[in-house]
């Protein structure tokens, strides 16, 4: 089979990997000596002279890094686009391309190949990852320009892109797991980028470990999957479902177990209850990282995985229910925390957790297309929100506390409007991308056969809260009186073009990104659903049959109304009666504190789990290892020691003789037995 450009699909992950190698070499040979000199070190000093730039001019290697870092991702985007176009040129049922690179892990009947798969689902994912990723790489060039470890940053960022592309392009669960843990690693490295800061390295470690808890479920799910299906390849597994269901191998219980285990992984990676705690802390990383990893791409991996496994989830109603419930509860729960946070990035972090909840809600009601659709639009507007907030932070020399912002509208002529557009998008204002995707989810959570009125109600309520906290953010940041520190205010400036151009491009996509999925009831055409149909099948047709269009329109109007109420409330509290929020907080101090402190979940985990495990381990070591086992050992030794002078003598240093004599003795015994 001739694939044309598709034969070069491997370039998509390989290009960012090339960036890792090149930037890694630069980091090692050009940047390291500079950093060492910085650390007050006399470097060994052979041949790195060219890299040692003057104090004022940036070292030449940084230009090269700034070229390679975004360049390889841009090239990967170009290849991705060509591949997807090639795929789109095929008939819908033929839109599946698998490229086996080499056999990776093989043992007995198990085969896990290093293989890539391009189909409509992975096509959307690679376009988002490389597209948004490219813009964020470009943005990073400006944002990170003051950082010493510039090359190291791009090594990690390129490595992340490689891992994420591996995750979404893998043609089996094993390769997905490679990417899955790989993005976790990069997240760890990038959150802890400023490793000298205790809170940053703590947050990185927390992210890795909490993710590992999820990965534990994922890998067990893969084991059960393999021993049930005899394969981990997507195409094989899904193709075998009818036969194995038919002969009773694949029972509902097994399907439920597999999907729930996989979902544990998704809960960890996509920061859902109860494993969401790492994501807000992950904001310790540089802001472009928050945009790329902790908003647009990595955290959506769980949604992708559930969607990828949709055929399995559809066999397990219990799992579907769990996915929908976890998603809905997380959506509302973290949205409420978002109301009270004052750190601009933390508001966005809880918002991300909440929006991911929507995506799971969609998957849980069987609306996988809607989930992926929201994944895509969210990638646009949430990346934009983070990058814009980064631009704000950049302008304010690192200030993240919204209580020390205000009136920035006039200072930031590009950041403000772009961020405002993103806010409208996430709030679900009709016409913008977020509206179409969120509304699709809300409608499906009501109308689908897996849906429920309660799910719709929670989702709609969370939409209102979302609109509220987002406009609270915008009002606190851009409007009202300046609360900036005078020293900071003097230096407020709009960001360089490398940062503002990505903002503008993302703003465009935040508006038009949803137009590919305009619901029929609004007279549009859902191209997105049509594109995804080969993966998920046509789900919408039969629902439309027993739900009148008027109902859909009414619900849509309802959710828009709720969002507008949220905006109005935010306007009232943060523009009209600005003293009111404090008054409210004072009226319900207990409740306010609980929400402000994120429901004390971190503290509870710490007391209930972390400390217990650590103290228990110390006890094990002291009581069991040292006292008990060694007590027995030393006791025996003492008895032996007391038994004779000979043993005493062996401790004076001639133990070699002792060893030889024991060996000799043993040999003699053997000899005796043989000769007797």
């Amino acid at each position: 089979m001739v694939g044309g450009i598709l034969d070069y699909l491997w370039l998509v992950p390989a290009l960012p990997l090339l960036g890792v190698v090149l930037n890694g070499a630069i980091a090692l040979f050009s940047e390291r000596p500079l950093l060492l000199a910085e650390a007050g070190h006399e470097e060994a000093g052979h041949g790195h002279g060219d890299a040692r730039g003057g104090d004022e001019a940036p070292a030449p290697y940084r230009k090269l890094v700034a070229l390679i870092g975004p360049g390889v991702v841009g090239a990967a985007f170009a290849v991705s686009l060509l591949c997807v176009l090639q795929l789109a040129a095929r008939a819908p049922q033929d839109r599946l391309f698998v490229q086996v690179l080499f056999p990776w892990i093989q043992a007995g009947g198990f085969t896990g190949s290093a293989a890539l798969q391009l189909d409509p689902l992975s096509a959307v994912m690679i376009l988002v990852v490389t597209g948004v990723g490219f813009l964020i790489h470009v943005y990073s060039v400006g944002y990170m320009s003051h950082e010493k470890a510039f090359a190291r940053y791009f090594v990690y960022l390129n490595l992340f892109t490689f891992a994420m592309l591996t995750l979404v392009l893998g043609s089996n669960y094993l390769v997905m797991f490679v990417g899955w843990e790989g993005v976790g690693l990069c997240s760890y490295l990038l959150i802890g980028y400023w490793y000298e800061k205790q809170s940053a390295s703590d947050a990185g470690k927390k992210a890795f470990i909490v993710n590992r808890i999820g990965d534990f479920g994922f890998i067990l799910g893969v084991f059960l999957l393999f021993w049930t299906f005899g394969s981990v390849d997507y195409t094989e597994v899904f193709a075998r479902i009818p036969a194995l269901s038919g002969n009773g191998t694949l029972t509902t219980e097994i399907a439920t177990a597999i999907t729930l285990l996989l979902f544990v992984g998704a809960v960890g990676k996509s920061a859902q209850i109860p494993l969401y705690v790492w994501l807000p802390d992950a904001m310790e990383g540089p802001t472009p990282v928050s945009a790329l990893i902790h908003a647009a791409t990595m955290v959506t991996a769980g949604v992708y995985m559930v969607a990828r496994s949709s055929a399995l989830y559809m066999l397990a109603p219990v799992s579907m229910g769990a996915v929908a419930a976890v998603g809905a509860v997380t959506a509302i729960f973290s949205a409420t925390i978002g109301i009270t946070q004052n750190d601009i990035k933390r508001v966005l972090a809880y918002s991300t957790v909440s929006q991911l909840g929507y995506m799971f809600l969609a998957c849980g009601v069987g609306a996988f297309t809607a989930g992926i659709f929201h994944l895509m639009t969210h990638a646009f507007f949430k990346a934009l929100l983070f990058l814009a907030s980064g631009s704000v932070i950049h302008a304010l020399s690192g200030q993240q506390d919204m209580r020390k912002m205000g009136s920035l509208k006039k200072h930031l002529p590009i950041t403000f409007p772009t961020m405002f557009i993103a806010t409208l998008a996430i709030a679900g204002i009709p016409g913008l991308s977020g509206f179409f995707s969120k509304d699709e989810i809300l409608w499906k959570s009501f109308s689908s056969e897996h849906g429920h009125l309660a799910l719709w109600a929670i989702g709609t309520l969370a939409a209102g809260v979302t609109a509220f906290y987002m406009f609270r953010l915008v009002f606190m940041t851009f409007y009202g009186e300046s609360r900036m520190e005078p020293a900071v205010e003097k230096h407020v400036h709009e960001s360089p073009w490398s940062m503002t151009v990505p903002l503008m491009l993302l703003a465009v996509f935040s508006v038009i990104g949803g137009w590919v999925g305009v619901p029929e009831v609004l007279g549009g055409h859902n191209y997105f659903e049509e594109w995804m149909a080969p993966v998920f099948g046509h789900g919408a047709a039969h629902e439309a049959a027993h739900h009148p269009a008027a109902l859909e329109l009414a619900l849509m109007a309802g959710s828009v109304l709720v969002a507008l109420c949220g905006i109005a409330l935010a306007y009232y509290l943060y523009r009209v009666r600005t003293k009111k929020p404090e008054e409210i907080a004072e009226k319900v101090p207990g409740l306010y504190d609980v929400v402000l402190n994120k429901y004390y979940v971190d503290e509870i985990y710490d007391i209930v789990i972390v400390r217990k495990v650590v103290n228990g381990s110390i006890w094990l070591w002291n009581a069991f290892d040292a006292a008990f086992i060694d007590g027995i050992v030393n006791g025996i030794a003492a008895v032996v020691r007391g038994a004779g002078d000979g043993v005493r003598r062996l401790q004076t240093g001639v133990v070699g003789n002792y060893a030889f004599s024991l060996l000799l003795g043993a040999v003699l015994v053997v000899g005796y037995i043989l000769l007797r």
Partner: protein
Amino acid sequence: MTGLPADFMANILTVLIFLPLAGVFVLFFLPRDNNRLLRNVTFAVTLLTFLLSLPVALKLDGATAAMQFVVRAPWIADYGIEYHVGVDGISLWLVMLTTFLMPIAILSTYKAVEKHVKEFMIFMLILEVGMVGVFLAIDLFLFYIFWELVLIPMYFLIGVWGSERRIYSAIKFFLFTFAGSVLMLVAIIALYFHHHEVTGVYSTDLLRMYALDIPVKLQFWMFAAFALAFAFKVPMFPFHTWLPDAHVDAPTSGSVILAAILLKMGTYGFLRFAIPLFPVAAVDLMPAIGALAVIGIIYGALVSMVQKDMKKLVAYSSVSHLGFVMLGLFAFNVQGIEGGILQMINHGVSTGALFLIVGLIYERRHTRLISDFGGLSKVLPVYATVFMIVTLSSIGLPGTNGFVGEFLILLGAFKTNRVLTVLAATGVILAAVYMLWMYQRVMFGKITNEENRHLRDLNAREVAYMLPILVMVFWIGVYPQTFLRKMDASVQAVVTRIETKRQAALSGRPAGETLLARYFDVRK
């Protein structure tokens, strides 16, 4: 292919075993005050041994389970004891690991070992003789000789070149492992007589033993004796307490060899002797051994987490890692056993590297306490990178060697015992906890201790011996086919042998027979 003459290749295994011994004789005649010469000659000998082992790996046929490159000569003919060595898919990579790590270990001593260099090098070379011999011996008696031979140099390495409590640790190491090997000797003798009783021939040939159909009751006791000997060595919980002490007090190179090779003698013993010779007992006792393995995984990880001394932390992590290997071997399927063998190699590479890494910082600061460090990344960027890669390998990140081994082990074990596997998999989480926590406390943060501010990053020699390890980390991680395919036939043969021998031994026995009835005639 290899350019070596055919009759040389026919005796290659003998060369591998005794080349280090030839090195010992050379060292005897070298001046004891020329440390540089002593070191370089030893390094050259170990490097040559490694180079000569390469053609074995290249030429070994993974498609046959038969012993290859066999050298066989009568030794103590009256008792049927032979000099009989050979290599197959099970022993190959352990031999390679030994020859691979020896030059690295020697290189790591150039600065670290200053006193009695001559004796030190002699002991290291004798150690290599014993280790290579253990993995190549096919004759039970020969195996036992090599097994015991390893003990002595390691005892001295710890006892003479070790740190504070070296005598205590050395004796503890010696007694623990010796206690085990005496039991094994008894079992070997029993097996020897059993073989004579059945066949009328006196022999200590392992391959002849394989052919026996050993009565199940006898299997139980012999398995118990062998298993105990090997369990001490692995070490399995609760026989592990000699390990942290031995490691903490051993010199760096001793720790490297101890962790990387000596512990594998235990796991190799299970796979080569205990399991295939006594499959009925092995399978029946699997729940007990599996449970101990899993306890070791979790217990080792938890205790590892709360250590204050870097070396002790790494030592306890070995208890955890070796638990994985045991779990894989006792899965009795191809995935589990191949994973187990690969994990033996992986642990040798990664934990060996971790001990080297601890040694590097110990040479610079003369402390291993985690609390004495912090912020080292800033002044030691190359060290930080190497340490990070090895850390990731140790916690089994995909793309590194550790993942492939752990994955196959857990995949195989999942088929055999799900509950144990689920529990074991928590060890993967805990590994991330203790390793990343250590890394954070040592490498991240600000430099709080002024003494750490002017540390020197790795020099050329240090990079030179860490680099091959990093290559192995990624080679095994990305393309494990090189290693796995050589094992196929041998591992499949073990799996098949377990099945057929079990069927043969148990046919005609009542269905649903309890273990008490099977082994102790206890009936309800």
